[in-house]
């Protein structure tokens, strides 16, 4: 169970994202191309930073509380999943708030 301590954060974000997506009928899967383009860009930028920071010891992880599956050298898989999930969660939140408030984004006006 201890090894899942970091994963709990990911599971929490995942459940929130799925919950909001279903409850507010965001239908995020319809936008999979845009979602993929955004997510891949964020992943690229932030994993460069993260990989560099971990290699240089800016921050480090308790090996008892992570799954110990590493990608790109010392980078735990949880970090990669974090940068995949957080943008998706942010976009779903954004779309739900657009729907609730009735405000329009620039792109939806066009």
């Amino acid at each position: 169970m201890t090894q899942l301590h970091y994963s709990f954060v990911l599971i929490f974000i995942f459940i929130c994202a799925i919950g909001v997506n279903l409850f507010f009928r965001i239908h995020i899967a319809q936008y999979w191309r845009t979602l993929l383009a955004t997510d891949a860009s964020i992943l690229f930028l932030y994993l460069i930073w993260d990989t560099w920071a971990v290699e240089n010891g800016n921050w480090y992880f308790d090996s008892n509380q992570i799954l110990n599956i590493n990608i790109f050298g010392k980078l735990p898989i949880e970090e990669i999943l974090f940068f995949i999930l957080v943008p998706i969660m942010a976009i779903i939140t954004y779309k739900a708030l657009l729907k609730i408030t009735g405000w329009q984004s620039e792109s939806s006006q066009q």
Partner: protein
Amino acid sequence: MIYSDIALDAVMVAVICDLFFTRTQMLTKGIFWLTYGLILPFQLLTNWWLTSKNIVMYSPSEIIGRRLAGAPIEDLLFGFSLILFTLTLWEFFLRRSRRN
């Protein structure tokens, strides 16, 4: 204090990208600040979990040392840049896909 520097740079790059490069102008929109305001408490919650249990630890020499909800204050800059960048790119790609 390299984390402090890069976190500040990340915010500046995201801001410049939003205002001048993609011209999505998210920073001028209420919906962006509302979204960020809703996500922020959740960032603090996950930060608190990750740092209070020492799942993630920071090298003291790379941060200024002030902490909020257990995590270095720099994490606020990191989180802000991540949300701004994400929504900026989302609007940018969405606009492009609608034009095509």
